[in-house]
């Protein structure tokens, strides 16, 4: 019967490609996500501090950076890094170009989240810290930052999940990630529909796992936030 033959064929296709896709996800998508998120967080952190600094030049540089990376498409940023830079003599391998592009992008968004979190902390907390003789730096690191981090975790969690999906753009600069692999197999087997469905399914698994982790983390840190 045609239908059951076709069903079996699709089933085998999905089974055959599942491991290659998952492997590409584990070898490229996940490391790319983790590395760029950590780098982006560090960058975002210092950018946020710079933007709140009383040194005008530092704040201006930070603002300029955020402006550029939030105001231009990620895809265009990646193309400039990978296809554009070689013309001025800078050759990056695809993975490195992706790491740089995504980190800079995450950094710009994370800095806004962290800045907003710092500014959301009640002024009375600064004043209480100053009143016991703390310096600005001590107040920032001991009193404000620990509270700001708790405020920032939910939106940063959302950025992280968005990043998992955004890494699929790396396929366009030839990184062999999950999506790239799906494209390759789809071309080989003339089965784009099922391959892309399967790729979507694997992304869905990744994101669902992260959702659960995020919810647990939020529950853990939610307890002592200033009300």
């Amino acid at each position, binding site marked *: 019967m045609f239908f059951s033959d076709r069903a079996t064929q699709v089933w085998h296709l999905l089974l055959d490609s599942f491991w290659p896709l998952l492997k590409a996800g584990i070898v490229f998508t996940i490391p790319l996500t983790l590395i760029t998120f950590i780098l982006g967080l560090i960058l975002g952190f210092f950018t946020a501090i710079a933007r709140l600094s009383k040194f005008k030049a530092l704040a201006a540089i930070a603002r300029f950076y955020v402006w550029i990376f939030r105001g231009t498409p990620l895809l265009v940023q990646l193309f400039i890094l990978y296809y554009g830079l070689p013309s001025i003599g800078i050759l990056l391998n695809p993975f490195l170009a992706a790491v740089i592009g995504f980190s800079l992008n995450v950094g710009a968004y994370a800095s806004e989240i962290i800045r907003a979190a710092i500014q959301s902390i009640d002024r*009375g907390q600064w004043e209480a*810290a*100053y009143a*016991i*003789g703390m310096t600005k730096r001590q107040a920032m690191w001991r009193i404000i930052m620990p509270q700001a981090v708790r405020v920032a975790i939910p939106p940063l969690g959302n950025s992280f999940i968005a990043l998992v999906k955004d890494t699929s753009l790396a396929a366009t600069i030839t990184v062999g990630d999950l999506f790239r692999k799906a494209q390759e197999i789809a071309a080989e087997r003339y089965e784009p529909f099922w391959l892309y469905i399967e790729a979507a399914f694997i992304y869905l698994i990744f994101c669902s796992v992260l959702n659960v982790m995020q919810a647990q983390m939020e529950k853990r840190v939610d307890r*002592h936030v200033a009300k």
Partner: protein
Amino acid sequence: MIAIHDLHKAFKGHEVLKGIDLTVKKGETVVIIGPSGSGKTTFLRCINLLEFPDSGSIQIGDRALTFQPGIRHRSKEVTAFRQRTGMVFQGYNLFPHRTALENVMEGQIVVLKRPKEEAREIAMDLLRKVGLEAHADKYPHQLSGGQEQRVGIARAMAMNPDVILFDEPTSALDPELVGEVLKVMKDLANEGMTMIVVTHEMRFAREVADRVIFMDDGRIVEQGTPEDIFDCAQNQRTRQFLRRLTEA
């Protein structure tokens, strides 16, 4: 001990303190009263430099600072000065991510660089003193307002300040919780702590204050013993203020 001379402060051209002179002796408890907007909070905040006075001078113990428009003191001087003054806030401002005990330890460790164990012992003693020994490991949100404010007082005391400034410490509290905080403050005063207290608790002022100061429109209008002020105020505005207060 504390000598404040000709203190001026304006916000965007609006003059809030119009030349305040005040000396406070060691161990004295001074209560400041006055209508809303008269500059009481601003005055306290100037004393521990949460606001910078435009001009005048403040001396606390052996540290003296003179203020002039446009001249900023080095942050080292500022923090050293602030360490000498404790502040108890109307809204408590406890650190929500720290337990009661840690709130009292924080400044000792970070600012005074006391060893952790010593800081813990001192903090525990202070919590005992304010009657919160049993609540040492609770977080601020697990405490009542009265308990939070008592932690706030212990936190200020932990720094061994020369003076503690109280800005309406009981006005955010439910009436039934006011007494426990005033009791702690009274004990402190009896032990010889130097205190400047902005409050509308007239019974406290009568019983505890060595001196009552009436502020109005950025100036000290009248001062004297509680009896002087409450029973035979000389100034018309003082009398008016007190009459309205007792009517309310």
